[in-house]
């Protein structure tokens, strides 16, 4: 959700139950404006919160002028504890307002961290140990040896955020438009989806580079408006039914919740410009989804 409309957005997304406490809200408002100034971002989005066992991560993303360019991700943890190790005791944490930049995600990272299961700890320097069987060959002998691989939690954080973004970041149709020269801009004349459009999954797009667009038949492409329909719609997500679309407050608010990554909530008030998504959850994929539907 946009940092500029943080309060309103939090209010609209509150139907899922997880939000921010007043002190966090206040600190976020100030720190995000500072981030915007320091890093010279065009827009700063508050991405959400990943709940860890010991501490939580607050994640923000910065966008440059081109909305679909790779986003820079920042996180804010609890900071190092100087002294007591008690959970929740923040004596000595000086980093409440500071954001750290995360490295961009690579394929390798995603593969490496896919073996990790369980909750996040909350400490970015925590290392997970994972034993792998690696084939080592010495001369002519080939034997398997157990190798303990250490993976940092920061890497895991990066890959999880990237996965969530690629899988379930949502934007309504018409909010961005593509110019013939390539860059994607915010559509200033976007006045919100109409009510009938808002109830359909096809009017929401994944907020990432399109993957399936090229596979569409020419017939389908003929109906698309190239300046607006340049991203993949949610309609054909696998598994089908992995989005829960609900109207709250009568028809005044559309809420999409992802079932694949539980905790992701997208909200939009039809006929207005308010929309946004936030992830508050444990950062784990719901692999049991097919059983649960």
């Amino acid at each position, binding site marked *: 959700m946009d940092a500029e409309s943080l309060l309103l957005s939090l209010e609209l997304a509150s*139907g899922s139950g997880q939000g921010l*406490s007043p*002190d966090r809200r206040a600190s976020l408002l100030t720190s995000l404006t500072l981030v915007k100034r320091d890093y010279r971002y065009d827009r700063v989005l508050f991405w959400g919160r990943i709940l860890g066992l010991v501490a939580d991560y607050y994640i923000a993303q910065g966008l440059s002028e081109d909305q679909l360019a790779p986003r820079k991700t920042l996180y804010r943890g609890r900071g190092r504890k100087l002294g007591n190790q008690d959970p*929740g005791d923040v004596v000595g944490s000086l980093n409440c307002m500071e954001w750290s930049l995360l490295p961009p995600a690579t394929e390798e990272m995603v593969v490496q961290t896919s073996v990790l299961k369980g909750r996040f700890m909350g400490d970015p320097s925590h290392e997970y140990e994972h034993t792998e069987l690696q084939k080592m060959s010495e001369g002519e002998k080939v034997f398997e040896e157990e190798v303990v691989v250490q993976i940092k939690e920061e890497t895991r954080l990066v890959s999880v955020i990237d996965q969530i973004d690629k899988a379930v970041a949502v934007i309504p149709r018409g909010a961005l438009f593509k110019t013939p020269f390539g860059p994607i801009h915010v559509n200033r004349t976007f006045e919100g989806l109409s009510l009938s459009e808002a109830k359909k999954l096809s009017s929401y797009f994944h907020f990432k580079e399109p993957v399936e667009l090229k596979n569409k038949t020419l017939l389908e492409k003929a109906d698309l408006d190239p300046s607006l329909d340049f991203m993949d719609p949610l309609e054909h997500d696998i598994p089908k039914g992995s989005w*829960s679309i609900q109207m709250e407050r009568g028809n005044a608010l559309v809420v999409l919740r992802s079932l694949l990554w539980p905790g992701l909530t997208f909200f939009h008030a039809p006929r207005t410009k308010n929309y946004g998504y936030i992830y508050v959850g444990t950062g784990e994929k719901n692999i049991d989804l097919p*059983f649960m539907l």
Partner: protein
Amino acid sequence: MEDLTSPKQDKKNQELGEARRPWEEIAASSQDPKSGLSEPLEPEQWLETGPQPRSGPPQSPQSRASPPLDDVTGPGAPSPPSPAPEASFIPSTLALARQQLAAPWQSDRTTDVNPKAETPHSHRLEQSSDQGKSTAPQTCQSEGDIFQQSQQTERHLYGPEDVSNNNSKQKELRFNIFQEEDSNSNYELDHTESGVSEGAPSPLEIAIQSAKAYLLKTSSKSGLNLYDHLSDMLTKVLDERPENAVDIIESISQDVKMAHFRKKLDTLQNENEMLPIYETAEKQKALFLQGNLEGVDQELEDEIAENSLPNVMESAFYFEQAGVGLGTDETYRIFLALKQLTDTHPIQRCRFWGKILGLEMNYIVAEVEFREGEDEEDVEDEDVTEERDDGDSDAEENDEDELPRTFYKTPQVIPKEENRTGANKYVYFVCNEPGGTWVKLPPVTPAQIVTARKIKKFFTGRLETPIVSYPPFPGNESNYLRAQIARISAGTHVSPLGFYQFGEEEGEEEEEVEGRRDSFEENPDFEGIQVIDLVESLSNWVHHVQHILPQGRCNWFNPIQKSEEEEEEEDEEKEEEKEEPEYMEQEVGPPLLTPISEDLEIQNMPPWTTRLSSTLIPQYAIAILRSNLWPGAYAFSNGKKFENFYIGWGHKYSPDNYTPPALPPVYQEYPSGAEITEMDDPSVEEEQAFRAAREAAALPVEEMGETEEDEDEDDDSDQE
């Protein structure tokens, strides 16, 4: 732009003239327009790019950057979506404005406001026509020179700001330029007089009229005409003054078009779409209405005295400190809905349990304790039907004889716990949204809990949905919901140590024998625990809901006792075939009020996470407990007060994948014996061998028989 009056004027001409004026003023304040030029230009283009300095470089995507010849010649040709005739029209208007624009710029130059007559005018135009005819690109400077004079003349023309006077002249000029340019090319606009001839009526006027007539032509599809559309659009732009208007000009055009249609379909659209909003608002309005006004004072007092309603807003405030909550107005509506619930039902105590999210709708759950003796009993059909089934199967077996008896006995149905005890201690009401009707959930049976532990399904939001799963769930969604609520309550309802204490009862020893203490009461001497202590040590929190045994109940039910009773009624044959163990171990769970530090870890993960709500102001912070086993379960305490809450999907956390339970092995249905066991038919060789062996065996028998007879005879003979 105060000099712009109402856009709706009779004379479109005037409108256009006025429209031009602000551009002139805008342009005057902008940078040197010539610097904006970049292309080899026809005069049109140069003029065209002039008045747009505020909109950035002339290379705006929708700009008419293509050579004006193209614009003018092929109305359908240019790629920009704007209609071409518009493009050609606008350059001409812009042309005029451009000239005005250049005029102030020219002010340092010779302000020779010589009222040049038509002749120099035409001279100039001929010159420009020369240019137009020549396809060689013109440089800016040369054009500038040529047009200086023309601008000065125009300046003079425009000087007195007498629009009406100037209009005809403007148009003359414009269309002249038009004509000159297009003399080379095909031009759809009707200009029969291509040459510059000055007959009467002047070709210019005819050209104007024909152009205007063209623009006023109504579209066969939409009923609009270009002229009106352009004027509406320009009006809108000038009224709203958006930034970088040229970038969004297409959208503005679309909006103007839509505005025409919107009025006609207004009523229909609004009705369909707005109806649900109004309905919900109506429902919620009912919440806000006070009860009937008879005997208000009396009722108020009664209400205040017997308040069974919890202070939801206060709990919500504390939970908000934890970052958990539904938003203030939503919570208030729930508060009112709870009040409605307590008003309509005889409720002793009521609590907002939480919210369970579903696919289509969500559930708001209230935990309720009825007043003594006012339980609403639903007729339980389940047990009755079970018995009937057993009876039927017995009857069948007796009818048909000699069927192999099955070993299978339907497992003993473990009866559900009585209301007000164990898992059915509280009654739960749900509604889909505040203002909706509250529906009571049926009491939970152990079978349902046992099965609910093995499946994992999303809730849809409708209580009658069947649950399709393996193992088959005995019930529909309302039962599943109730079972999950029971499990969540048993797993995550905690309170600070000492808040509740066991009641002092006389029969304590008996209770120990049964292994359970299932009643507790509030401790009046509770003095509170420091928040820091609550956060640091999990042993300061205790469960105050009974743990549910693997059997599905809180109090152990021994199924063997009952089956012994039934045995006497059954046939003796069945008795012999009973395979149930004589003794079943009593299932034991942690007793009530155990501290949560005793909770099992989940794969080296602590089952609870504690936090202080605020790190910056610790003296007023509260302790927050978050369950890792049931994500979404929260508890807070500020030392004296505490509350539990759940918001989530209603499922337990497991780091491993869910695997549905395997099917049981195929059951042996009957004793195996020689008659039923399958055997292969003997092959031919085997049969022959068998026959041979039998014959071989028969021979010695016969021989034996003969020898025995002989022996007998011998014996007999011997004996004689």
